[in-house]
């Protein structure tokens, strides 16, 4: 399967994940929060990691996979340093998020769900993120960008690159 456990600091990350699992009051109801933690530590949720979570929580792997494949926030693919989450909720859609999406797509040269060759950016459409007042909304890692227009896209990409020192 994946090489997730061969990565740098994998053991360290697993220790952090185990410690987080220990803090959960019930194992069965902890699936979503543990997956969030796992994704924040490893960046994505390859099958090996899902299986690890399933066995730790003593729930079927199929159930964990069902959750991961249901929520678009969870990714099974390795992502770039910046995940550009494009909100496709109704409000954002009405306000023209499709233009923002295609602008990101053009400037980065990737389609939705793909990652740039330099490993910097992943483009990801998501369901409503609940910030409709700011529509159209783009969320990059933890940072929310409101009222985004197609012409803002270039600057947003530049900001990210600067942040990385590229």
């Amino acid at each position, binding site marked *: 399967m994946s090489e997730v456990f061969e990565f740098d600091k994998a053991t360290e990350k697993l220790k952090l994940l185990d410690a987080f699992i220990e803090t959960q009051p019930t194992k069965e109801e902890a699936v979503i929060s543990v997956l969030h933690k796992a994704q924040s530590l490893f960046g994505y949720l390859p099958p090996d990691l899902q299986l690890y979570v399933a066995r730790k929580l003593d729930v*079927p*792997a199929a159930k964990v996979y069902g959750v991961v494949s249901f929520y678009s926030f969870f990714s099974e693919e390795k992502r770039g340093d910046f995940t550009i989450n494009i909100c496709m909720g109704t409000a954002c859609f009405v306000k023209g998020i499709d233009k923002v999406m295609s602008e990101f797509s053009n400037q980065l040269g990737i389609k939705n769900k793909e990652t740039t060759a330099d490993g910097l950016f992943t483009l990801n459409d998501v369901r409503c993120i609940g910030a409709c007042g700011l529509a159209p909304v783009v969320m990059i890692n933890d940072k929310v960008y409101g009222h985004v227009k197609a012409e803002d896209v270039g600057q947003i990409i530049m900001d990210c690159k600067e942040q990385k020192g590229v």
Partner: protein
Amino acid sequence: MLNITINGKSIQVPKGTTILQASREVNLKIPTLCHMNLKEFGIINQSASCRVCMVEVEGRAALVPSCSELCTEGMVIRTDTKRAIIARRTAVELLLSNHPFDCLTCAKNLECDLQALAQELGIREIHYTGEKMNYPIDDSSYALIKDPNKCIMCRRCETMCNEVQTCGILSAVNRGFDVFVGPAFHLDMVDTSCTFCGQCVAVCPTAALTEMNHTGKVWSALNNPKKHVVVQVAPAVRVAIGEMFDMDPGTITTGKLVSALRALDFDAIFDTDFGADLTIMEEATELIHRIQNGGRLPMLTSCCPAWVKFFEHQFPDLLDIPSTCKSPQIMLGSMIKTYYAQKMKLDPKDIVVVSVMPCLAKKAEAARPELTKDQNSDVDIVITTRELGQMLKIAGIDFAGLPNSDFDQLLGQSTGASVIFGTTGGVIEAAVRTAYEWITNETLEKVDFVQLRGLEGIRSATVKVGDMNLRIGIAHGLGNARKLLNDIRDGISQFDAIEIMACPGGCIGGGGQPYHHGDMDIIKQRQLAIYQEDQGKVLRKSHENPYIKQIYDEFLGEPNSHKAHDLLHTHYIPKERI
């Protein structure tokens, strides 16, 4: 009690009654699809996902699903309004709009609940066209085929797999239009810890889950003049196959079944019951040995291949507790390829052993690498009760009209003890009948151990055998088995011997039996028939079978002998859980 009104009729129903249940009190038949209730087994699927049973409730803006909506005091329900009927038809049309239209060649043609529903609702036109699912078909295993394109998300298979069997192989995957039921990570079924019990197949309303059909191989063998084709039939088949020929559930058709197999031109027709008698000889000996020599107790039966695969995946640390006996079908296959071949001066390579089983796991069992001898599988082809029924129809055999005939000799005679292998509790009762006489050296006058019978998921009884109390546990359904296994692992088990069957009801409720379509009475009738068949036998203890005595005298030596171990026993392999 609650006072409610359905379609103008006032009735009283107990608290906790669903609208669907209440409607049956006034002779209404609200159509359903995802709903399933096998209440004696405690199996209920109430996902309310298909939206086919929608009804109108006064004062409620939206229609409600009658299968899951509970009655409340003063509730006024209409099941027959235009709005409700249109909603149901729309639900079915939408399901059909994303369903392959290959009914004529589908494995479930005329056995499909969706097809039956479309007919019941008089759907003659589908007003919606759009994208259709296009997933690859999973035919990775020897046991079953999974076609996600025919999945209607009723969740019945998930209920069976996760709640009843606690295997956890199947889950809803993806979201929205792309959703279907499948294993983790899009794995092939063969790469999961699926036991192939086939209970998902038994309850699937469509052909999203069906058995792997092996009838083609049987036809080829029968038409190959160089092959000596031997068939064996499991106990549970004879009380169920009649259902495929409009006979009442629970009709005993043993004699007709033999005649039918003869009509298909098998070279020899043997009875898996003989294999069951042989199993008792070996298993009872093993049990007595363990009891008298301080061996590992409880001993668990090992006839059920789904159960065997279950404990290999789920309890790999407890592989020393099941009996090492092969299952009756494999034992008989082994005797056919050795003892029978020798007697008949046949080269085992020229023999094809076909098993007719109520089971899908038997297909996977026969393919297990360790269950082959000298490069020849002990059993070559396994077909289900349903597949045999289909073969008989293709051959134009009038099953119901056939005369009775007897199994061929040598491996065809059986006792009542082996017949009851077909139901939960039967294997252990058969073992007790023999163990009793062997331990006490007395004749057992009353062979019916009614305390071991029934349909409760977990049962226990103590049987007095001489001066010892034999503590017996019985579980059917793998979820119930898991509870017993957990007790053993935790060291709180109080049993000496435990029988486990993977399917609810035992083999009579197997995944290869004629579809019960959610009717629990069918399984009960089959069970009654099994005990009736036992009652009608002259010999009812395995060790009294004269041909069993002969096979030990001439070939095997004694039970648990070196040769018996070589040919009739096996070992288990720890497996991963995924």
